């Protein structure tokens, strides 16, 4: 689960750091867990509702706000693994996937890796596929429903004209969309017991990442800009609401969109 700038925060708080070509932490808008990643945790907790399962949440970042990232424990996860290192970079999906794959391997046997379809900041959806690629397992993307069936995972996902149900052998990586459902509100008991749950912190050195470096293959961000939104809006004036509505209809007819 990734810690991201709140995607719903007011645009007026949003600032780009020209040095790092990334967004600055916003004063007055605390970070949140990326929305699709919350859906992924919900999918994991639903599996745990039905059968004996242990849910480990992994969060990776440069500076993780404990109050934000431990929300996963309060919601019902069993343990939290924090990968925290100044060298991590959200715009380097290869490094991120390498660190996560290394952490998954180091943590031990697993049946299923659940991720959000894409993060709210980088909007790419590369890391889950990178993890699958590095772990040598399959990746099913865009699930709206996830179930475990014996040694395999069964996933339903929406298509343009309907849906499909796929089955893959475990272990596998599965990404989920908002259709899975919102993350449950923590119950009083879960909330109280969260502070007793284990939180493990690993750095890049703990993951022995140095050999994962890949020469020349990355992408480089040349510029990061807040798009200039030239206000071209015509506010329709009129004596009455009816007059404004009539003007709008006539403008839309001229533009041939109705």
């Amino acid at each position, binding site marked *: 689960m990734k810690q991201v*700038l709140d*995607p*719903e925060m007011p*645009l007026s708080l*949003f600032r780009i750091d020209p040095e790092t*070509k990334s967004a600055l932490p916003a004063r007055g808008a605390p970070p949140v867990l990326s*929305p699709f990643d919350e859906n992924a945790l919900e999918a994991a907790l639903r599996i745990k509702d039905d059968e004996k399962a242990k849910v480990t949440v992994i969060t990776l970042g440069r500076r993780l706000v404990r109050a934000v990232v431990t929300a996963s424990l309060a919601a019902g996860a069993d343990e939290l693994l924090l990968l925290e290192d100044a060298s991590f970079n959200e*715009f380097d*999906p*290869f490094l991120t996937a390498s660190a996560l794959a290394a952490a998954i391997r180091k943590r031990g046997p697993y049946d299923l890796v659940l991720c959000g379809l*894409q993060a*709210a*900041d*980088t*909007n*790419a959806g*590369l890391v889950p*596929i*990178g993890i699958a*690629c590095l772990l040598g397992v*399959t990746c*099913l*993307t*865009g699930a709206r429903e996830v179930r475990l069936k014996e040694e395999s995972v069964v996933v339903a996902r929406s*298509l*343009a004209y*309907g*849906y*499909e149900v*796929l*089955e*893959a*052998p475990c272990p596998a990586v599965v990404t989920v969309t*908002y259709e899975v459902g919102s993350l449950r509100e923590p119950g009083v008991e879960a909330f109280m017991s969260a502070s007793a749950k284990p939180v493990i912190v690993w750095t890049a050195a703990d993951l022995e990442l140095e050999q994962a470096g*890949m*020469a*020349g*293959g*990355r*992408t*480089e961000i*040349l510029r*990061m800009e*807040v*798009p200039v*939104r030239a206000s*071209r*809006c*015509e*506010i*329709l004036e009129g004596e009455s*609401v*009816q007059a*404004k*509505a009539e003007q*709008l*209809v006539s403008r*839309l007819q001229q533009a041939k*969109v*109705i």
Partner: protein
Amino acid sequence: MVPPADGRGVLVYCEVEGGRLAPLALEVLGVGRRLASALGQELGAVLIGEGVAPLASEVIVHGADKVYVGEAGLLCEYVLELYLPVVEEAIEQAQPAILLFGHTLVGRELAPWTAFRRGVVASMDCVALEIDPHTKRLLMTRPVYGGNAQAVQVSMGDPQVATVRAKTMAPAVKDHGRYGQVVELKAGGRLPAPRVKVLERKAEPGTRVKLEEARVVVAGGRGIGSASGFKQLEELAGLLGGAVGATRPPCDAKWAKESQQIGITGRIVGPELYIAVALSGASQHLAGCSAAKVIVAINKDPEANIFHVVDYGIADDWKAVVPALLSCLRARTDKETEGIWR
């Protein structure tokens, strides 16, 4: 993983939908042609499926110099593990400098897989693609931070892989005078047994496609205030032959369905007309509708952010504006019907 090699030319993946080239395939061909011409190099296109070979001539008419066709009964529908080796066979043959996909369910998988397996990173959901006149590298512009910012990035290795957001690139122009070469891919003969099984595939009429394909979308925000408010939006959308969407708060409050949510965390639409009603205009939402041709906002707060990004605005209470619009539109429909009888 193989180290990145220097490539030549542009290769695009053309998605087929119901036996025809998908609209986005024509847009990907359009931008592919433009980039190939800017480089003075060849445009290749990949066609995969069952019965797709006859589409090759259409792909050539739309700008391709060479079409790589992967034709096999097993490929009748998209399965990652079956399609990936076929795409990779085309990549091995073409050795492209640039590799483009549409940003669809298919492209969202094929682009990262082909890129990672070649030691490069794909740039997803691009809204602009240009060749840098000095370096000849591909400048890829993509929205990040929920649409609050745009990153312009380059890939340090080849192929430079990108997916293209629907309705952001001009579709290819037909030229019946063009000719090109068709290359048959052998992949059909040596497809692996997939680890992933398709247990079921079903059409769900009406539910999913509607928003993405609607010519008109009416979207409601927090200010709508109730499920019955959304009924009024349904009426407006109905008169315009459109569909109803929502921002996140109405979906959380169950006034609208989860499947109606438009935005980075929901659906991405690009209709001819987008009517934003009683919503403030959070970037997260706007990123899901900014491809619309004409955007209208109705909001009683004249300072709302939404007015900065739309073409026409009515700064008034939607509860008065929507009924007024309904009556205008009904009057217009009556007039048109009269015209027919005259």
